[in-house]
């Protein structure tokens, strides 16, 4: 079953992860060396992993923030960690000292140590000091809570509606007329001229949670309960996340990718996504099969009869790097396998096996490959 995902991609991915685990800006030489290894990795692999991988950091490390909410949480966490570290060192030392110092020695005289029942002064001290620490921690925390939750939405903000489904993400850009799935595209936000993305979070079925650690903390998507969050990534790249609230069988493979594009790239992407599907003559047979089977009950392709809404919109399927909410790379083989037997890629997903014969399967896959 591993082959479904393609074992050839694993090697390349591991290297990417190793490279970007260290900040690439800090050590230029190392970067060059690693770039060479990366290229070698790519050569070894049969094909590039993800087509569009300028910043493919695969580690969703919350301590490498790249957006204001994640930054302010990061700074708060350093403060909290520092205070906790001080408390830890003090109490740990006291404990260790008392355990070692007051152990019964081998030459013990057998007499009981003097009983001490307590001391009000000491009790008062170790009540008041923690109260003061708590107060400081609380004030620092409250500041960050309000800073993130009550941020004003600028006029230039991009608005996105994210809808959680069992086990994929739907993204709508109401002002831009774009509809996509699983791979969220947002523009990079220049601090001098911010274009943050404000996300409204909804759910079509069970609870989910939108979590891309390098961009922001998580916020849940709950049916009948509208939630909001925002991000303003300051560098282009791909940011990895996934559903962080147990939502059913395939919670684990409800992966999430956020593409932070340069303003030009983003504009171009929006233009392409706004176009109706381009249907080529060569894929006519595949289109016929697609439109006369159960596919269209769940999937939509704009400009055709397919208008199902239970599954991801396929109008621009080939513009996405992954299928099945990030469970597999978007290649012909994977796509074909996904239509033929989704259980091998994502057991328990709601996509049914289509039971097409080999010829029809190839034709449908070829048709989908034309949806750019």
């Amino acid at each position, binding site marked *: 079953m591993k082959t479904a*995902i393609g074992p050839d991609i694993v090697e390349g991915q*591991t290297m990417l*992860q190793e490279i970007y685990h260290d900040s690439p800006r800090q050590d230029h030489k190392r970067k060059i060396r690693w770039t060479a290894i990366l290229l070698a990795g790519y050569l070894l692999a049969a094909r590039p992993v993800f087509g569009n991988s300028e910043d493919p950091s*695969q*580690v969703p*490390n*919350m*301590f490498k923030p790249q957006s204001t909410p994640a930054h*302010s*949480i990061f700074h*708060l*966490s350093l403060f*909290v960690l520092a*205070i*906790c570290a001080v408390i830890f060192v003090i*109490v740990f030392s006291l*404990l260790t000292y*008392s*355990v070692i110092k*007051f*152990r*019964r020695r081998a030459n013990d005289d057998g007499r*009981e140590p003097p009983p*001490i*029942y*307590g001391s009000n002064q000491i*009790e008062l001290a*170790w*009540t008041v000091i*923690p109260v003061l620490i*708590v107060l400081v*921690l*609380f004030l620092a*925390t409250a500041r960050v*809570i*309000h800073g*993130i939750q009550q941020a004003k939405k600028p006029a230039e903000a991009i608005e996105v509606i994210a809808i959680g489904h069992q086990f994929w993400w739907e993204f709508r850009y109401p002002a831009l007329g774009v509809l996509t799935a699983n791979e969220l595209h947002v523009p990079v936000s220049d601090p001098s001229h911010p274009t943050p993305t404000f996300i409204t979070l909804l759910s079509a079925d*069970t*609870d989910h*949670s939108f979590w891309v*650690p390098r961009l922001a*903390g*998580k*916020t849940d998507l*709950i*049916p*009948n*309960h*509208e939630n*909001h969050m925002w991000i303003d990534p300051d560098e282009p790249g791909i940011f990895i*996340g*996934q559903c*962080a*609230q*147990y939502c*059913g069988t395939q919670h*684990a493979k409800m*992966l999430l990718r956020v593409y932070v594009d340069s303003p030009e790239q983003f504009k171009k992407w929006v233009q392409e996504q706004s176009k109706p599907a381009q249907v080529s003559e060569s894929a006519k047979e595949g289109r016929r099969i697609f439109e006369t089977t159960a596919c269209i009950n769940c999937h939509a392709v704009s400009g055709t009869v397919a208008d199902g809404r239970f599954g991801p919109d396929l109008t621009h399927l080939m513009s996405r790097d992954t299928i099945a909410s990030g469970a597999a790379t978007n290649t012909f083989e994977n796509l074909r396998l996904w239509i033929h037997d989704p259980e091998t890629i994502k*057991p*328990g997903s709601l996509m049914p096996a289509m039971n097409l014969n080999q010829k029809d399967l190839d034709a449908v896959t070829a048709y989908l490959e034309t949806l750019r």
Partner: protein
Amino acid sequence: MASETIALTAAHDVSQPIGTILHDWVTTVDHKKLGILYILYALVFLVIGGIEATIMRIQLIVPHNHFVSPQVFNRMFTMHGTTMIFFVAMPILFGFGNYLIPLMIGARDMAFPRLNAWSFWLTAFGGLLLYFSFVGGNGLYGAGTAPDVGWFAYAPLTATAFSMGHSTDFWTLGLLVSGFGSIGTAVNILATIVCLRCPGMTLGKMPLFAWLNLVMAAMVLLAISPLTAAQIMLSLDRFLGAHFFDTQAGGSAVMWMHFFWIFGHPEVYVLVIPAFAFASEIIPVFSRKPIFGYPVMVAATVCIGFVGFSVWAHHMFTVGMNSYANSFFTITTMAIGVPTGIKIFNWIGTMWGGKIIFKTPMLFCIAFLFQFLIAGLTGIMLSAAPFDWQLGNSYFVVAHFHYVIVGGILFTLFGAFYYWFPKMSGRMYNETLGRWHFWLFFIGFHLTFDFMHVPGLLGMPRRIYTYEPGRGWEIWNLICTVGVVFQIAGTFVFIGNLLWSYFKGKAAGNDPWDAWTLEWSTSSPPVEYNFARIPVVKSRRPLWDIKHPEDPDWKYE
């Protein structure tokens, strides 16, 4: 007084037919036998819950593993959580409470012996009902066997649309039934401690063990009730078409969260306060000093009991509460760290200037102090709402609460086993095996749960049956799984030690630890009526007064 408090020697067990013995245990209303039944029952479920955890750790040892299917994995974490909380931790703590409270307060039994038996059997059958789901949960073909909704069973995953068959119903009914058992035991503990203390034992002279169990029982009464109410509502949803939590029909998913966590967070204190009770008995005896700051310890516990009911929504920082609600639950959660910290300081104060004896019970309690310190500090990190937006529902949280439950509660429980085993069985445990158990479990615990924090920081959410390679999570998951091997080995040594010592251990005598509370004044194991004559106490350490008539506690307290 010494000779009076010491009971008549127990009539030596003459061999009886097995049927008679079984009948005796099944129909017993004796608090000691019920206590042992609770403990044995919980030990069986501890092994089952441990097997479920092991299956999960094997599945997560490498990315894209195929040891179990996602469906099985989801059942495993649901059953592991439910089992460990409701059918291991609660019964085992109730078992120790049941056994020890009447002995410690100089009573002959619990206030309501029949209610006691009824409560135990309700809990027992609740667990069987839950596990019957493996057989009977398959209401519709292929619709699952054991429940797979997670131990907090968030709506609407439990609605009929998303949970077909009857697995969720077994979960609901199992918890409903055992919940009634818990309420019965809580009433019983409250009544016993309030009404049955021996002459001279004012509230201020009770052993801390009794005080802490009193607070725990009050919390059980208040916390289990909303859970019971929510389970009934959920059943109405599932069977009679009510729409409390059915979001497809306009119900509220968030309301379930509130109901669950107003139970769920106090529940943590319900479990940890008895653990504090064990530590508060064991640490003084093995430091040879009375507990430091007794009134403050009591006040801190009562304070935890109250504040514990105002922190529940820190489990819900990510569900979109407004900034004021988030701030409120941040400050209450941080505030509860103060009385908890005071407790740790007082235990240090107890050891300070003492002569610490490193027997197995004390080893477990010292490890508890270190581990609970870390658990408390990660708790402070999680209490800061924005930090929780990152850490919540990640493996960091999993590591944090296992630090509380395993590093805190289970370690003191092991300590309690070794400390009171001589009293319950009349025989000493094997000290060498006890040390082996401690070190194996200590190493295993730290391998598993120290390193479990890291993948959380690197963005690994909990409850995923597999993960992608290249996320930086592989090595940490591998180490976590390796730790399990040590924990399993430690558990085998523990069970082996109990069995060996029960049959072959040296006779313990009444008071092997030279301890100070009343249970050590009677025979080991205690006779059915506990005390030949009801003791009269003058201080918190009645046996100290007897052993040191020249320097009794009551002159100073």
